[in-house]
Every structure is written in structure tokens, then in C-alpha cells.
């Protein structure tokens, strides 16, 4: 007993010293509620990367502090303050929703902490409010929807209704779709963020009779929307198209068969042919017994980007200018193949077309169909005057 106590005392005495030496990452994400699937996938992707890196970022031991924002801006703000003031994290990442990112952005940037976004890419932070301490390793919100707008035009769709939640990410998505869709937008519907019953909207769709509905409803919203759309018998007259956010591994297993044949756009696909991706997908399936979603791929890339930056600066995290340069260089093997940052710290990358179908093992999942945009940048970079 005495020995154990001594060992425990010793351990507790050495722990803080170790922790002080570690690179600290504050991982704040939506891990409960209907959108929890997204945050969980980003987290699992991030943790898989940490496993591949042997728990280190750039040869320094790393500590990842995970917290749930409950999809609530106030909770997120409090947790972010705790990360910054009490835990004194070196990096932050993980936030799913743009409205939440926008509420915590200011305190993070004010404390000169780098935020590496593994999901939310609001237009505000890509344009006039771009910031040296912000890097988005996923996409700008408009981009994935822009690809679908381009595709809908190429398909000759004449009459499309757009539906999205009423928050910055939803507005960016419909703006992105409209930017590249040349046909007629019959209607734009903005619903409450987190709405789960779409009976009223579906009745309006039935009355409006468009060719197709472009929906951006991430998480449980999209799951319910597709199920209710099919249950209302609308699928025989109206075509559904979406960005990859509502057509990935968080949604497909929950909805099942009705997802088959759904065309969607994405910056990544699990059957994308490159070495980093093959390793990521194989190990993710082995570790978590499911196919990774695009959210997981973004979490994985976020950790790899952090690793590359710490490595290049040789672990000197106090030199903010050097660290920023190292992030800008983006010298990591992204699971989506080529990747580089634009001057506003948002990606310039390819966007692909995918379709949901059965694979050779009989699983319902996405199949890569081709490239919609190559080396595509966002529309806001011109408004960004990034401080030197």
C-alpha cells in the first residue's frame, strides 16, 4: 500500500512537468445532439492521426484536450476561454458549425493562438475578416456547394429549390450553389438550425414542383429530411442533390436504401487513390469498424498539418511568425492528394463528384465519379487583406 502511494505521488509529481513540455491542442467540437456524428468523426480522424504520429506533434509529446460544445455558442465560448486561459493551449481545432466558430474566433485570435479549422469555413473569415491566426484545412463553406451548382448546370437542370438552415454556414452554401448554377432558382428556403421535422417545407416542395432540390442540412437535419422526403412520396417527381455533407457515412447508414443514386460533391472521397488516403481509410476501418466520412478525413489532415508546422519550427511554438510560415507552407501529405493554402489561409484544391451506390461488398457508400473543379479557390480571397 505504501509503495503504491509513493508511486502515485511520484506519478503526480512528474505529470505536470511532462504536461508543461507537451504541445497542447484544444479540441472543441459538437459531440452531443443530432449533429454529434460530425464532431465524433472529426475527433476520431484527429485521434487516428495522433496514433499514426505516436502521440507526438513534430517530435514533441502532444496532449489533446477534448470538449463538447453541445452545438451551443455560449458553451463553446466558455470552453474556449478555459482552453486559452487555464489550459493555455497552443492550437485549437474541431468546431463543426460556422456560427460557433464565429463566436469563439475573436478571443482565440486575440490570444495569438492558432486555430486550425477542420470543418467550419465561414465566408467572413475568408474575406474581410481573414486573420493570420486562422487556417482552414477543410474548405470554404461555399466551395462544396459551388461544385454542385456547376454540376446542376451541366446536367441542364432548369428549376431548382435550395434549402439550408438559417445560419452563416447555410447562407454560404446556398450562395455557393447560386454562384455556379445558371438555371432558375425557384425558391430559397431557410429553416431553423437544428430543425428535425420538415413536414411544412415538404408540402411547399410538393406544391412548387421543381426539377430538383439542393439541400444543405448537415447531421441529423439531413437524415430526417431525406427520410421524410421519401416517406412523403416526393422522390418519384423531384430529384435530390446535395453537397457531400449530407451524403456521407454519418447519414448513409442512418437513412439506408433511399440514399442510393444521390449525386453529391466533395473535396475528398474514401476511394481516392493516393498512399496517404489508403493508409488513413484502412486504419480508420480497422480502428473504428466503419468507413470514414469526409469529416474524419478533415480531422486527420488537421492533425497532420499541425505536426508539419511543429516539425518545421523545431518545436519553437513561441515564434509566431515562423509558426505561421510553417502552416502556410502546408508541408504534409493530405489524404486528398494535392493541397495548398491560398493567401487567405483557405485551401486551393480539387472538388469531386460522388454518387451513393452499393460497393462490391454490398455496402451502401459513395463512389468517386470524377472531378468537377481542379485547383479551385474561394470567391472571397480578393476581399482579404492578410497582414504581413
Amino acid at each position, binding site marked *: 500500500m505504501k509503495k503504491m502511494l509513493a508511486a502515485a505521488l511520484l506519478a503526480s509529481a512528474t505529470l505536470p512537468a511532462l504536461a508543461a513540455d507537451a504541445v497542447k491542442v484544444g479540441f472543441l467540437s459538437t*459531440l*452531443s*445532439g*443530432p449533429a*454529434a*456524428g460530425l464532431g*465524433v468523426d472529426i475527433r476520431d480522424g484527429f485521434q487516428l492521426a495522433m496514433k499514426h504520429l505516436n502521440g507526438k506533434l513534430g517530435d514533441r509529446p502532444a496532449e489533446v484536450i477534448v470538449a*463538447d460544445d453541445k452545438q451551443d455558442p455560449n458553451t463553446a465560448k466558455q470552453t474556449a476561454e478555459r482552453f486559452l486561459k487555464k489550459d493555455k493551449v497552443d492550437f485549437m481545432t474541431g468546431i463543426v458549425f460556422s456560427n460557433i466558430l464565429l463566436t469563439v474566433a475573436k478571443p482565440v485570435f486575440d490570444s495569438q493562438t492558432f486555430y486550425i479549422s477542420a470543418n467550419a469555413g465561414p465566408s467572413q473569415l475568408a474575406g474581410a475578416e481573414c486573420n493570420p491566426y486562422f487556417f482552414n484545412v477543410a474548405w470554404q463553406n461555399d466551395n462544396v456547394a459551388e461544385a454542385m451548382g456547376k454540376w446542376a448546370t451541366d446536367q441542364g437542370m432548369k428549376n431548382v429549390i435550395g434549402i439550408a438552415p*438559417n445560419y452563416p454556414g447555410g*447562407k454560404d452554401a446556398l450562395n455557393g450553389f447560386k454562384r455556379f448554377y445558371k438555371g432558375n432558382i425557384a*425558391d*430559397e*428556403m*431557410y*429553416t*431553423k438550425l437544428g430543425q*428535425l*421535422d420538415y*413536414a*411544412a*417545407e415538404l*408540402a*411547399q416542395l*410538393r*406544391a412548387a414542383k421543381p426539377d430538383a432540390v439542393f439541400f444543405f442540412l448537415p447531421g*441529423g437535419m439531413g*437524415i*430526417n429530411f431525406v*427520410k*421524410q422526403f*421519401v*416517406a*412523403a*412520396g416526393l422522390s418519384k417527381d423531384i430529384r435530390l442533390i446535395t453537397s457531400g455533407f449530407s451524403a456521407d457515412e454519418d447519414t448513409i447508414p*442512418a437513412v439506408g436504401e433511399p440514399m442510393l443514386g444521390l449525386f453529391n460533391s466533395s473535396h475528398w472521397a474514401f476511394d481516392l487513390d493516393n498512399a496517404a488516403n489508403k493508409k488513413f481509410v484502412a486504419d480508420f476501418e480497422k480502428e473504428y469498424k466503419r468507413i470514414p466520412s469526409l469529416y474524419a478525413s478533415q480531422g486527420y489532415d488537421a492533425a497532420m498539418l499541425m505536426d508539419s508546422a511543429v516539425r518545421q519550427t523545431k518545436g519553437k511554438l513561441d515564434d509566431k511568425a515562423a509558426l505561421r510560415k510553417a502552416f502556410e507552407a502546408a508541408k504534409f501529405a493530405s489524404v486528398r492528394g494535392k493541397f495548398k493554402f491560398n493567401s487567405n489561409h483557405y485551401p486551393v484544391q480539387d472538388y469531386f463528384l460522388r454518387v451513393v451506390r452499393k460497393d462490391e461488398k454490398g455496402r451502401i457508400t459513395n463512389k468517386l465519379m470524377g472531378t468537377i473543379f481542379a485547383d479551385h479557390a474561394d470567391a472571397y480571397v480578393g476581399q482579404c487583406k492578410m497582414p504581413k
Partner: protein
Amino acid sequence: MSQLILEQALNGLQFGLMLFLLAAGLTLVFGIMDMINLSHGSLYMGGAYLGAAAAQASGSFLLGVVAAMLGMAAVGVVLELLLLRRLYRRDHLAQVLATFALILISNETVRMIWGPQPLMLNPPAALAGPVELFGFSYPAYRLLIVGVGLAVAAFLYLLVGHTRAGMWVRAGASNREMAEALGVDVRLLFTGIFALGAALCAAAGVLLGPLLAVQVGMGENILILAFVVIVIGGIGSIRGALVGSLLVGMVDTLGRALLPTLLRAVATPEVAGNLGPALASIAIYVLMAGVLFFRPAGLFPARA
């Protein structure tokens, strides 16, 4: 256009009837026992989780509904005997505090058992598609909900209006002391009412599960609406709860459907998207304020 309004009216009816299942129990507890039970929403959540778990384990949705109703009725009885019984004679503040604590306890309990991620409950396969109705298709499952809601309303009408137990309930609602003096076993009656209310709540939870999501905290949002319903309908009155539920269901659905459409005609989609849902959610409270202005005790006050 008429088809759109008909479909929206059906949606409103479906939503209203589910609210009624919640409000019926709440109004009896509030009206007869003079007890504010904030944890009513937790019974709704508990029912949804219990039903989802039972449906997943047995593969039968019907079994899930039965398990949820019986399970939550039992929980209701235990809760009434152990805790709520001690609160009847206390003031409303003590009741609010105690039942608010119950909300927190049950949310964390559910989180511990089922985890923070919502359970996805699917409707029975036979009801997953649409049915043809007056020349348009309508989801079969929503139609089932309307049917169940109407059946429960009829059952409660007969129970409260035409049975001895119902007479006791009405007597208790209009004058508790007098009913006690006339020899009604009010303690037993209270326990029974509480169990019935919990079972109805649980039924609403499971039935709405496939349309919403079975998740922690699902009871709180709907509880507020249930309170609006019983205030509009008149506290303690089943008839009031039914009329109030249908009014709130219709106003909410039609408001949500028609206001943004009307606004889009005069404003940009973004403004309409901002303003429409906001105005629609205010509409319910405007309705409540209007009803209370003309009838301060609600539409059908139990204590006339």
C-alpha cells in the same frame, strides 16, 4: 394551393394531437393536484428512449410503444409515491425546484445509459412510404399518428366524461377538498392519474421518435409548448387540452408554412428566412396572449 393548405392542415393536426398526448397528463396533474411538474418532459424523453431500445431489441415498433408506455407508467408511479406526493402541499417554488432537479437527473441518467449521441428510430417498414389521399400522397406514418391521437382523445373523452373514475377526476379538478370530504380516495386517484399521464407522454415520445430524434434534452422544448397548450385550454380540462393542442399545432404549422412564403413575396429570401420562422414562433404566444386577454382562465376552465 388548396392541396397545399390541406396537407399543411394535416401536418398541423398531426403535431397538435401529439402535443395533446403530452398536455393531457400535464393539465390533470396541474389542475387536480395543483402541482407544477416540470419533469413531465423527462417522462416524454424516457418513453422515447425506452421505446427505441425496446423496438431495436425486439425488432417490433409496436412492442416498443407498449414497453415505453408500461415502463414510464411504472416510473410515474414510483416517482409519485416517493417524491411528488411530498410536494403537493408545498408552494409552487418548491415544486418547480424539485422537478427541475428531476430534469437534470434524468438527462444525465439517459446520457450515462445511452450516450450523448441521439438514437435514430425508424418507423415500421410497412408505414415508411406514402399513401394516396384525396389525390396526393401523404406519409403513412404521419397518418398513423393522427389516427392514434384521435383514438386517445376519444378514449380520454369516454374515460373522463362517462366513467366513475372520470367523475372523481372531474370532481377533484373542480374542488379537491369537497371531493375528499365525499369519500374519494384522492391519494390513489393522484397516483393513477400520474401513471396515465406518464404513459401518454411516453407514447408521444416513441411515436415522434422517427420524425424527430431520440436525444437528451428533447423534453424541454416540447414541455414549453405543452404548458402553452394547457394555459390556452384552461388548466385541468381535458377538452381544453385537446382544443388548445389543435390550435397551437395548426397555428405553428400554418405559420411556419405560410409566413415565409408570404414574406418572400415582399422581401429577399434571406430576410424572409430570418423573419418568417421568428414570426411563426411568436404566433403561438400571440395566440396565447389573445386567448388570455378575453378569457383569463383559458378556453375551458375546469373550476367554473
